[in-house]
């Protein structure tokens, strides 16, 4: 997908996020809005995949580590045709496969269980080791958050990925500066994250994670052939990107949108003309 189309797609996905959050009584919306550009760039521009064959062995893997970003993944998968778009309206209903956090095996395209933070980079290391052992040429993308960098297991996995020179592993971090209890710098300051990953032996890119030109440039460098190390893109994002009352507001860890807030969110993003999807 070309860059202009990708930007339009990201806007369309944001509209969908807000509509689902509104209609289904709430979601981790601020997180989904901060991470949607990074996830869209991977899914529409970099990852090789086929919605008609979700188990195709040659597909690039996409693993979502912070399961709370589930809705962002669901809108992408629904848009790409992995499952019926109408099922988005069942998000987190009892019995729905669209659970509040992602669990492997519940839906085509959902390849990791990430509700418990900090575990999925390790799973990605296992998948990347498999690909190398069996001479498969697909990539493993792992999406992480900055908050989960607190978990020690992330760094065990980071060390192993570099030790095994897993150049087929590409991580992306949605670095929005917030975790449950507040700004990451106040809760537990893990900066400088780029230096840490460099010191662990990774190839590091860092950019505005809501700027799709920058994101796609960085991902292109991390996905080029001939690399010998795992790569990570640290995307500096804005929590709740595009919605004035969500941006940088720690009050909205979990967001319920009444009709007025929904209209305001749509208005922030698209101006007064806000047709429902």
């Amino acid at each position, binding site marked *: 997908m070309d860059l202009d189309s990708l930007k339009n797609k990201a806007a369309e996905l944001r509209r969908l996020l807000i509509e689902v959050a509104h209609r289904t009584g709430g979601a981790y919306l601020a997180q989904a809005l901060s991470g949607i550009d990074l996830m869209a760039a991977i899914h529409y521009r970099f990852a090789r995949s086929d919605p008609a064959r979700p188990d195709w062995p040659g597909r690039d893997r996409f693993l979502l580590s912070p399961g709370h970003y589930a809705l962002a993944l669901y809108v992408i998968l629904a848009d790409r045709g992995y499952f019926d778009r109408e099922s988005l309206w069942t998000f987190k209903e009892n019995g729905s496969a669209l659970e509040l956090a992602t*669990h*492997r*095996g519940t839906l085509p395209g959902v*390849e990791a*269980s990430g*509700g*418990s933070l900090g*575990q*999925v980079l*390790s*799973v*990605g*290391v*296992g*998948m*990347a*080791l*498999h*690909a190398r*052992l*069996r001479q498969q040429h697909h990539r493993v993308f792992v999406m992480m958050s900055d908050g989960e960098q607190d978990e*020690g*297991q992330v760094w*065990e*996995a980071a*060390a*192993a990925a570099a*030790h*095994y020179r897993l150049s087929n592993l590409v991580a992306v971090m949605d670095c929005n500066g917030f975790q449950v209890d507040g700004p990451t710098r106040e809760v537990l300051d893990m900066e400088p994250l780029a230096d840490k990953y460099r010191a662990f032996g990774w190839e590091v890119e860092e950019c505005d994670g809501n700027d799709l030109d920058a994101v796609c440039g960085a991902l292109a460098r991390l996905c080029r052939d001939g690399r010998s190390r795992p790569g990570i893109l640290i995307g500096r994002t804005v929590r709740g990107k595009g919605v004035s009352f969500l941006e940088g507001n720690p009050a909205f860890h979990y967001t319920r949108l009444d009709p007025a807030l929904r209209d305001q969110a749509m208005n922030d993003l698209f101006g007064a003309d806000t047709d429902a999807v």
Partner: protein
Amino acid sequence: MAFVHPMLLKQPDAVHGPYRLALADLGAARADVVVLGADLGNSTEVDLFRERFPERFFNVGAAEQNEVAIAAGLAFEGEVPFVHSFGVFLTRRAYEQVCVQVAMHAANVKLIGMIPGLTSRLGPTHQAIEDLSLMRALPGMTVLDLADATEVAQAVRAIADWRGPVYARMMRREVRRLFDPARYRFEIARAVVLREGDDVAIVSCGLMLEPAIEAVSELLARGLEPALVHCPTLKPLDEASLLAVARRAGAVVTVENHLVTGGLGSAVAEVLAEHQPCPLERVGIRDTFAVPGTPEYLFERYGLTSRAIVEAALRAIGRKRGGPR
């Protein structure tokens, strides 16, 4: 009157490193088996596999949480990972990873925990005394406590062929051999009734088989008729075999190198209480952490002896007959 059984060697001996050899043989037989180690290569007997199949061996360093989750990723892709550490570290330290990444997806990961129960000299940090309990609590987990060198040698292939996650605790290095390899066949989910009897049924797992055999001999010498059930699979439990033996004996003693809570004693208590209530005595460690020491010293100190089994059997028989506890 010594207890004899055709499956048991008349003269028990010892085998050096039965797991080491069995894992290497498995590597030759099955190209889909990969092995993970956590800085304990020789200590967990993965070194021969590593020598023969270096491309299928991954050392992740002393990082068991990462080790288990990496194994899940390999299993999701169709590999059959054998994951190694001491039992304590796989179960205590990596419990959430075992739960979330392995058990929750019935991932085909095989967890091999060495140094079971009170067989470590390093004290309570290394003594896996609640590992069976932790693993038994996880939905869909298969839990094994292996008894001797013959069983270890046979179990490795059975574990690889078994579909789904397995936790197996076992001995390494000089391992006692009780079963005749030509006559014994290990199967997951099967208990082996070595003797039937009318007075009391002794049910053991893991290393407690040998003292249980001694206890049976002692009870026979006293003119009693004990049953003996070897139960290496704690989950799924061979309920039919256990209930048949318990029905005839009318009293049961469980014996384990583990806390009496959550392991074999609890598993048997649950099935008896639901289907065949009868007096039950549990031999094992009683709600305490153990001190450091040699296995011989610790087994004596914490009551993992044939004498303790005989006493428990006599108590159970007394309760069956309505006598005082």
